[in-house]
């Protein structure tokens, strides 16, 4: 990738001279800069472009023609082939499953993390520092360490409507945990709550509001940007997760898009156009979400990054 050879510091152009030569040089630099940055961006997007172009090609075309050629005709049938490729289920089922799991996990995290964050940011109680440190410490624990005991736990939790009679084979293990707090979300929302001026809460307290009322009517509405950030991150993580769905989901109609896609890959080895159509469709919701809410993604990473 080409890194443009332009001054790297952002220390602001202190070029205030107005001579035409200098202005010309400056325009030239600008053009080089834009060209370099866009070229680099396109290079970064090569896998996406390659995915889109392959997904519209005929299967024979993929192996014979030059890789950078545009498709001869647009083979949209790759998408319908992909959608109906597996017996008994469509890709739409996987979508619904992913959507449900990701939404429930997001709701759970929003509620319980903001509650915990309020306690840590606003309330006074003994052991606060130790407890908060303990919660942060769980951030560095690889979650695979708790995989086996959690599997055992869910195996003993009854669920009469599943084949197994317990939670295995249902999507419950994939989102119920979210209703029991989380380190990242608690930390993120707490950082935001700390910036809320305490005189707002003090005034409400003087008026006789209890902590729950203060939480709901002052803190939650003010924290909307932070909550949006947590929501899109949790949604993304749940949507993209592979290992947990792989462990807990047992039959095709319960698969999420990631497991469905991995399964699909095993079934359709070599059929690249259909595979690329599947990959693209599974990525599309997150890409759209990103284009709409980019600043929340950036903010989430920045907050947790800088205050870590």
């Amino acid at each position, binding site marked *: 990738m080409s890194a443009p050879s332009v001054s790297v510091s952002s220390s602001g152009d202190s070029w205030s001279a107005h001579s035409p030569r200098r202005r010309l040089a400056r325009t030239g630099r*600008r053009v080089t800069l834009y060209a370099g940055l866009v070229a680099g961006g396109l290079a970064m997007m090569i*896998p996406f472009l390659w995915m889109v172009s392959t997904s519209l090609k005929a299967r024979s075309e993929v192996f014979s023609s030059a890789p950078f050629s545009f498709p001869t005709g647009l083979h949209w049938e790759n998408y319908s082939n992909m959608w109906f490729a597996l017996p008994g289920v469509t890709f739409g089922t996987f979508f619904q499953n992913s959507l449900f799991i990701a939404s429930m996990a997001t709701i759970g995290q929003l509620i319980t993390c903001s509650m915990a964050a309020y306690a840590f940011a606003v309330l006074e109680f003994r052991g606060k520092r130790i407890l908060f440190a303990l919660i942060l410490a769980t951030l560095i624990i690889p979650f695979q360490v708790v995989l086996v005991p*959690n599997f055992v736990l869910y195996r003993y939790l009854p669920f009469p409507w599943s084949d197994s009679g317990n939670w295995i084979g249902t999507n419950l293990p994939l989102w119920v945990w979210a209703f029991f707090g989380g380190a990242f979300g608690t930390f993120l929302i707490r950082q935001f709550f700390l910036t809320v001026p305490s005189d707002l809460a003090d005034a409400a307290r*003087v008026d006789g509001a209890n902590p729950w009322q203060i939480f709901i009517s002052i803190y939650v509405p003010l924290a909307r940007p932070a909550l949006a950030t947590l929501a899109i991150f949790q949604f993304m993580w749940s949507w993209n997760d592979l290992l947990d769905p792989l462990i807990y989901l047992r039959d095709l109609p319960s698969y999420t898009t990631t497991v469905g896609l991995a399964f699909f890959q095993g079934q359709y080895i070599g059929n690249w156009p259909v595979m690329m159509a599947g990959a693209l469709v599974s990525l599309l919701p997150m890409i759209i979400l990103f284009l709409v809410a980019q600043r929340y993604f950036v903010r989430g990473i920045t907050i947790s*990054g800088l205050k870590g």
Partner: protein
Amino acid sequence: MASSSGLTLPGSPAGPEATPAPPVGRTPVAGPVRPRRGPRAGEERWALLFLAPTLIGLAVLSVGPILATLGISLTSWDMLTVPKFVGLDNYTNLLGDDRFLTALRNTFFYTFVSVPLGLGLALALAMTLNQRIRGISWIRTMYFLPLVTSSTAIAIVWLWMYSPTGLINHALAIVGISPLRWVADPTLAMPSIIAMSTWQGLPANVIIFLAGLQGIPTEYYDAVSVDGAGRWARFRFVTVPLLTPSIFFTGILALIGAFQVFDQVYVMANPGKPGSPTITLVYFIYESGFRNFHMGVASAAAWILFLIVAVFTLIYFRTQNRWVHYQ
């Protein structure tokens, strides 16, 4: 209202009706308890209420299971019969198990190549993208797009790029290099996976570095420019030192994440094959626990992973004083 009297005895645990989970009450208190003002009394009960879900989750889904993993790792258990205590056998067997040692070696190789590579590239890219020009946010979007993609879908796309007739071999053919087998080649498989992961991991690191770069006051650059410092000197003596907190933080995230690599390996390299060269620690845990139902072995491997991450995190934090400068 949890507190009707407005009076809370500092030493007493909160009322039983408000204690679904005990850890707060048991936390040792050091030093004298501060006197409480009237309106704030009873806050501990409220805190307990707000923290109840978190405390249950911490006990049942984090702390408890970590200890349980340790217990299970000392047994031989297939989940159907009663676990049999075997002492440290699982651990000693693992250290003599070629497949586990391969997984360990691959995980270390992946981590110690992908983390420095990813951080270095991210720093270069962040400095490139740190421009105050019109449309920069649109340009950044192109670079940030891999951020939101699932490793599963991305691995499938890269599998196709790496395939014998894929994009990368086509590109090599242009410069006269004969096709390589990439993920199917035992020596190239891990580097291929690292290249893909690095590409996918770049945006998050770049975003942190960009925020760090934008937090550097321009006066610092002005100051060294007065002293006649060139571009390299400004980078070396202003940018890098002031960015060390961001580098430190990104490093820890990358380190922990790298030890847990799974999705890419699962999709790309079909590590289920007996002689597969790309098995990683987490794949090993998945395979022994959830394919072969050797829960004791899986738990022992998980604890080894935990210890490795803990040790490296600790060492990394220890080095902090030597190179991280907080403003």
